[in-house]
């Protein structure tokens, strides 16, 4: 276990000075900044839309594009980038020739990706609060300070969408390990995501992992309370299957590095 901890530290060190930190920051900042500008530029429309109580409508407003577009694209991109660090530097062979178990190699890198995706959600939630507060400071008509920040709802929404995106992360991780070419897992991931958008009204969409994150946000759980546990179960099962299959497949690859 100590070795796994040290190897995970090594994996974090490999991500140092790569573009992943900047991309995480920009991805988390993008929509809160855009929506802040919209609120400042169109108070005539937005003051009405942000009622009642500002924060919950604003949370919905900010998460809408993020859950549908930013989160899937960010996860697909960041997973490929982290794995590409090894391919680009031709270092897989050195990793596999070091005294590390195959499971250790597989899961320690996965932890880095999982942590980056989690930090995106934390940063996004933080920027959401800052963006909302800035809207209130810039224009009193939104009555932001009169309403408490709904921390529970912020955390619950982020947690649901995070769980929804984890299967995509696991599938993309396996694809990124399988294909040396950066464009291949990225292309497959984007194609699967776009297909999901097209199929969003399909009654079996609940079995399509690339749409779990958007569904976690867009589903009306007050009208269909049975959907939430179903989505949680499907996401969890898909995550476990994708990880176990990925780890087994990579372990049994004939040639490594």
């Amino acid at each position, binding site marked *: 276990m100590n070795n796994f901890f040290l190897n995970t530290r090594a994996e974090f060190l490999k991500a140092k000075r790569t573009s992943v930190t900047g991309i995480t920051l920009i991805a988390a900042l993008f929509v809160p900044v855009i929506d802040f500008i919209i609120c400042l530029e169109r108070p005539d429309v937005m003051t009405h839309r942000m009622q009642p109580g500002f924060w919950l409508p604003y949370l919905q407003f900010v998460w809408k594009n993020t859950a549908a577009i930013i989160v899937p694209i960010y996860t697909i991109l960041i997973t490929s980038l982290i794995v590409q660090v090894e391919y680009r530097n031709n270092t897989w062979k050195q990793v596999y020739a070091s005294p590390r178990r195959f499971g250790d190699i597989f899961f320690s890198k996965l932890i880095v990706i999982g942590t980056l995706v989690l930090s995106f959600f934390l940063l996004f939630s933080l920027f959401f609060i800052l963006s909302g507060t800035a809207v209130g400071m810039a224009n009193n008509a939104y009555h932001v300070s009169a309403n408490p920040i709904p921390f529970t709802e912020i955390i619950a929404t982020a947690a649901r969408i995070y769980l929804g995106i984890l299967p995509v992360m696991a599938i993309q991780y396996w694809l990124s390990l399988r294909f040396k070419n950066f464009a291949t897992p990225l292309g497959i991931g984007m194609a699967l995501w776009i297909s999901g958008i097209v199929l969003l009204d399909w009654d079996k969409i609940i079995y399509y992992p690339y749409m779990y994150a958007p569904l976690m946000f867009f589903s009306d759980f007050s009208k269909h309370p049975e959907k939430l546990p179903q989505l949680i179960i499907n996401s969890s099962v898909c995550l476990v299957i994708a990880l176990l299959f990925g780890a087994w497949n990579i372990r049994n690859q*004939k040639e490594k590095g």
Partner: protein
Amino acid sequence: MEARSNIIETRNLDFSFHPGIPILKNINLQVPAGSIYGFLGPNGAGKTTTLRLLLGLIKQEQSSIQIFGQDFWPNRITVLKRIGSLIEQPSLYGHLTGRENLEVFRLSYGCERIRIDEVLAIAGLSDAAGKKAKEYSLGMKQRLAIAIALLHQPEVLILDEPTNGLDPNGIIEIRDLLRNLNQEYGTTILVSSHLLPEVEKIITHLGIINHGQLIFQGTLSELQQFKTAALTLAAEVDDPIKATAFLSGSFTVIPTNGQLHISIQNKEQVAEIARIWVQNQINIYQLTLLKSDLEDLFMQIINN
């Protein structure tokens, strides 16, 4: 250090990526403990594949590879803890500094932080430790890769063409570094190359591989004997029966297509044979030194 004669041993090692197209055939590699073993062969002969099998980069769990007297696959982690390696071009994280590259692998090998400064000094990179690896010259990259391989003070170093692409100074630096490691630390070194001149000054043993087969294994002096034994002289004379009789006892003569094929040890023996025949009134029409495939191979490996 293990009190064993061979630190690396393969028995009848076969390998193919596709059924029916063998890459390695019946390789019996024997690397003595404390040696610098040159693993030579032309490009595409199977050197890298063999080394990748030794390091578990190619999965073949039923293969008979013994390192430190242990079967490789059941003891993969234990064995790899005692091996340092450099396969093909250096594996470095270009965006990290030399020191950070070493830190990545130090964490994996679980060795003391002080080893980073020690291996930087051994590789002569102490002053460049804070520079990003992508800004290193090829020679510096090779030395950093060797420094990584040395981090955990391995008993065996497996290096695949470590002088590839280096200028003559770089080759000398790497050669001195390897000699030093072998003499001062007793490290056994298995180093591959496609040119004998690159490694002949430091190796104690060598193996020659061609078309996936180990065609020679031994010391440098044994190689010399083996090479000359491969020379054949083809002679055309007026009386082959009498000519054969004059050489019997000294040479092996085989009549072939109207010619006599004579096994010789060196080129001086051509003159000796000619002298015997001339003294005995045998008319010589033609003398040709035959080049065997094996000799062509030696020429490729031995000559720069």
